[in-house]
């Protein structure tokens, strides 16, 4: 029995090894990097420690642009996608025939390659010398004038980015909300019906409070996900997001690390820690709000 006391550690060894090298060590290292000034990637030396990296990043116009884009994306897509998902799930749970078919269809975007379908969105929205593209055709049909959504004005690009993000994140939210709605006990509805409660009152007094934990879960994960947006933007606007003016915070980190403007792990680390601080703060606020508002 004695020699098997530490056998548990043997089973954990591979996991600890991998987590140690690729998670714990990097976590410490990223903090160290972010304070090392003038770190040289080749010679692996730096000339002192301090807050210079943070100052540089916060003053970098590209970072400010990325910060703005990310916040706009978060503020627009999280409420829109959660609201839309709630509407769709409510509609789904009040019909019987074809419900499975609709559910399958709505889930499809989840299993597609973001970059691949992003190309399709680009083709739909893009204006080329040959054609105005599908979406502009629709706009003109309703009497508007066509816009280049991919290389055109900033608001148009922002709009496509938001539409694509909502399209991508909806499946997960619909799935969670439909199963939350299905788990509300039928007894509550029966009791309300016996009392002659109006449908809108049933929704606000029974359905919404019962699924509120799930809604808040979706809002929190939605915020976190939207703050980390990156590949969707690459799919729509290409890898050079800075010149397209469409970079996001994560995009800024990767551009600092690698690519044409890359080779600055210190700046990337500082930016990553700023991102982490923002996400952490917002998640804490969300949790505090949800504690006061979730009824269960």
């Amino acid at each position, binding site marked *: 029995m004695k020699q098997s006391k530490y056998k548990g550690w043997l*089973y954990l060894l591979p*996991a600890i090894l991998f987590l140690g090298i690729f998670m714990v060590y990097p976590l410490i290292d990223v903090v160290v*990097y972010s304070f090392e000034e003038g770190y040289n990637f080749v010679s692996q030396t730096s000339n002192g420690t301090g807050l210079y990296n943070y100052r540089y990043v916060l003053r970098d116009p590209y970072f400010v642009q990325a910060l703005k884009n990310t916040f706009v994306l978060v503020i627009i897509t999280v409420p829109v996608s959660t609201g839309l998902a709630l509407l769709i799930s409510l509609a*789904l749970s*009040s019909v019987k025939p074809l419900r499975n078919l609709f559910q399958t269809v709505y889930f499809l975007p*989840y299993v597609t390659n973001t970059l691949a379908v992003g190309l399709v969105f680009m083709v739909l929205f893009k204006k080329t010398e040959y054609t105005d593209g599908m979406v502009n055709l629709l706009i003109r049909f309703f009497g508007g004038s066509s816009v280049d959504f991919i290389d055109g004005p900033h608001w148009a690009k922002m709009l496509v980015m938001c539409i694509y993000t909502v399209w991508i994140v909806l499946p997960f939210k619909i799935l969670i909300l439909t199963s939350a709605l299905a788990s509300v006990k039928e007894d509550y509805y029966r009791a309300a019906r016996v009392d002659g409660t109006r449908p809108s009152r049933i929704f606000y007094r029974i359905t919404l409070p019962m699924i509120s934990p799930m809604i808040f879960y979706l809002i929190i994960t939605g915020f976190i996900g939207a703050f980390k947006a990156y590949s969707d933007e690459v799919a729509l606007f290409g890898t050079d997001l800075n010149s397209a003016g469409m970079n996001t915070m994560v995009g800024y980190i990767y551009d600092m690390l690698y690519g044409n403007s890359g080779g600055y792990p210190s700046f990337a680390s500082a930016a990553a820690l700023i991102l982490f601080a923002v996400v952490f703060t917002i998640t804490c606020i969300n949790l505090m709000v949800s504690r006061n508002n979730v009824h269960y």
Partner: protein
Amino acid sequence: MADNEKELIPETVTAPEPAIASPIATQSEYDRIERAAKRRKIIRNALLYTFLTLCAIAVLFPFYWMLLTSFKTQSAYNNEVTPKFYVSEPTGANYKEAFTAVPLAGYFLNTLIYTVVTTALMMIVIVPAAFAFARMRFPGRNLVFSLFLSLMMIPSELVIITNYVTITSWNMRNTFAGLILPSVTSVFYIYLLKENFEQIPEELYKAAKVDGTSDFKYLLRVMVPIAKPTIVTITILKVIECWNAYVWPRLITDDRKRFLVSNGIQEIRQNGFGRDNIPAMMATVVVVSVPLIILFLVFRNKIMEGVSRGGTKG
């Protein structure tokens, strides 16, 4: 059936008020109320289905468009000032082009190797770890488990910078090892599997101990088969994740020979067929999307259940 009731009863409860006012509700009045309720239900259903169908079209339209475009010839596509919703002369040439003009088959093979090896290695790492946390008693277990849990909150963006430096300094850029190694552990999946292992009665473990079965044999012969549904779910989620991986492969590969499909698509977008050959591009997109869609249609319930238990996409 229950759905019909839900809507009907509030109506009938509020509606009979005039009937109470004049105590003898005539048959015709009753019919009128019934008819009104029925009409309302039809309108309501029509609205619901219209809304659901419109949303379904919004979801499906990009898929339709990529399929459609992939069968158009390049010249036909470029001549359509107003895009057409049908193909007059469907062609398969774009698919041939997708495999010959760019090394798409190579990208596929890379992604396949990457997905299979990563998933298999991950299982080798996480199954024993979950077993150790669920069943074995050893000093420091609870402490290590809490440390593991706290790692779950760490976003990958924080650690990816150092991992990039590490892999580069190990000279593993453009190798499968460099692609795979950082993504073979997942604290979340260890946690999920541990919860599942714990539901298996401990008596089985004790009985096996009495019989002199070794821990490892017990894990392989009893635990793994019983927890198979969860293991399958984790495998599927990991496969989806690997197939769509973009950020890490982009950092670590710049040699086309090692590109995964996501990077391949991006490469094609930037300078693949020449920017104007949209139909060939769409054919590539179709080829890349189809495997996962088939996987989804086959394992539909498993995937949806697994994602609602442990998936996020963000």
